[in-house]
């Protein structure tokens, strides 16, 4: 049984005639310990998909119009509030793009991490006081130890003094490490990282990617990584799902996808980014822009921008088909021969 199984998820915003479908018939799995990357441009539905896993989207305005999200075999969409509280943090943890917006500015970072511990690992948060040294002081010390251990784990220097810092006293990279420590505090089976490095500088981004890779090996934790940067994909992912306008257009093992992108959109996305040292004279830009969800083109959603579009592309919407083992592409004219050099 996969750790996470999303089946035919349909997610809408708004109601009646004004409703737009942000996620349309989306299905994919994450196995235990696997890293899956969700790639796409802004507005393609990748963040809302990620938020749906622990039902973090406010409903309304969001509305689940169909499908199932099975976490360890149990449907998240049918869970009670108490059950949801258990899986949020307990099974799935989140790390978001902007660490400064995710941390409480008026609480010391040590206490913020302790809060997660109290909720999910109460025995770690207040270790039984040792017989010799009873009292709240000793109790606090032992819960501090766990927080210090977590901060050390994510590579924060001098964690003993850092637990007393406020978020504004830390840099963006350090704040993101605190967020990761907090996500790990409850020892989740799945870590959802939504653009965790987009707000950071490249040298700090490299540090965070190394950290995520280490943690993945150390704990055998599954990661759902959401990004628009194909470079990060190659560094971390086992499998990649490419999204466009609310649909998955391609799923494949990461290396295969990067070597030989199948869907024209994946190919175009890879061609449009400049590569270091390639000395290309001109970038192959994708014409036009991502369609609005309330004005999706008929047929294939990518056809108005697609260099390989045929007459029938504007008529029939293509299905996501398994074209090779483990490789799914939503395009009848897919090819895996014209990849990057």
């Amino acid at each position, binding site marked *: 049984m996969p750790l996470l199984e999303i089946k035919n998820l349909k997610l809408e915003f708004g109601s009646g005639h004004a409703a737009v479908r942000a996620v349309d018939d989306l299905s994919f799995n994450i196995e235990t310990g696997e890293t899956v990357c969700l790639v796409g441009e802004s507005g393609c539905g990748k963040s809302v998909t990620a938020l749906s896993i622990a039902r973090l989207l406010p409903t309304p305005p969001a509305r689940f119009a169909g499908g199932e999200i099975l976490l360890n075999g149990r449907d998240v969409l049918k869970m009670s509030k108490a059950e949801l509280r258990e899986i949020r943090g307990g099974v799935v943890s989140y790390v978001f793009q902007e660490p400064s917006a995710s941390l409480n500015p008026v609480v010391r970072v040590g206490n913020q991490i302790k809060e997660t511990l109290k909720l999910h690992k109460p025995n770690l948060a207040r270790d039984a006081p040792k017989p010799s040294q009873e009292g709240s002081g000793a109790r606090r010390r032992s819960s501090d130890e766990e927080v210090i251990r977590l901060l050390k784990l994510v590579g924060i220097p001098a964690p003993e003094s850092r637990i007393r810092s406020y978020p504004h006293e830390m840099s963006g990279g350090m704040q993101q490490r605190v967020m990761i420590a907090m996500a790990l505090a409850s020892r989740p089976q799945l870590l959802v990282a939504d653009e965790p490095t987009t707000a950071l500088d490249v040298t700090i981004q490299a540090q965070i990617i190394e950290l995520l890779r280490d943690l993945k090996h150390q704990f055998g934790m599954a990661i759902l990584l959401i990004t628009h940067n194909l470079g990060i994909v190659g560094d971390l992912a086992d499998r990649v799902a490419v999204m466009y306008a609310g649909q998955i257009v391609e799923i494949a093992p990461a290396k295969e996808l990067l*070597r030989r992108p199948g869907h024209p959109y994946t190919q175009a996305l890879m061609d449009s980014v400049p590569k270091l040292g390639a000395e290309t004279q001109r970038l192959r830009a994708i014409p036009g822009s991502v369609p609005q969800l309330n004005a999706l083109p008929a047929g294939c959603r990518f056809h108005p921008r697609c260099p390989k579009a045929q007459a029938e592309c504007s008529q029939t919407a293509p299905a996501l088909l398994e074209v090779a083992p483990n490789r799914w592409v939503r395009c009848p004219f897919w090819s895996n021969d014209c990849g990057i050099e």
Partner: protein
Amino acid sequence: MSALLEVRNLRVHFPVKHGPFSRAKLFVKAVDDVSFHLEPGETLGLVGESGCGKTTLGRAIVRLIEPASGDVLFEGDNITRLRGAELRLRRRKLQMIFQDPYGSLNPRMTVGEAVGEAIDIHQLAESPAARHRRIEELLELVGLDAAHAQRYPHEFSGGQRQRIGIARALAVEPKLIVCDEPVSALDVSVQAQIINLLQDLQAGRGIAYLFIAHDLAVVEHISRRVLVMYLGKVVELLDAHSLVNEPKHPYTQALLSAVPVVDPDSKRVRIVLPGDVPSPIDPPGGCPFHPRCPVAEARCKIEVPLLRELTPGHWAACHLAR
């Protein structure tokens, strides 16, 4: 050949208050003794991490921020001391495009008014009809529809707004455009459109760009030469070609190796720099990079390395660079 822009020993300092009773004023040396030049029609890339002073340098050149000392020579004239009408006259040749296409357009002005404002200020149109024609021409030049002039910024996507920003800069026929992270707020597929547009405009009109960005791949693609900054100082100045093949400064090397690559078969070794960029209020002594430098020696902590020309056109500020 005379340079279009020459920057000499430019410094920009920001005062930092230090408590109500403290008389000692501290300064952030955002730009510290920077010199370079730019040829007509050339693109000079400017890279560095956030807080290294690249935006401040760009703004000081167009004098949106007053420099503390140093000279900026534009077409041979020192523009750091110009005022009023004289400054306005020079600024016509010197424009800027900003990072955030949402924040840099007035939401209450139509696109036509935003682009036309520059034409009015510099009195570039003889008649209302000519002004109207000029606005339509500019919008078409940047790939928008002439009819878009009547619309407001919120009706456009990020990429289209960036095109409006470019049209506004082009309205006064500048010779140099300072592009401050023009594509970093855009989606990758749109980013390529804007880069291509900037290159086409340069080929057609011979505009020079000072292209500020943190994405090395983009900078390498668009620039002829690249300036690397760290804590307000230039650490390396080199050809875009040698940026990838033979960077000499350890910071440039680390920055380059940190860029994620798409190629899954790449054998590249990543240099992960420890720590963060130090605070520019209290930069480390000696070489500002030495606390994070993987090859630092004892003298790096004491002696400030000067920018030296290693090979013709390739400058680096490192004691150990050969």
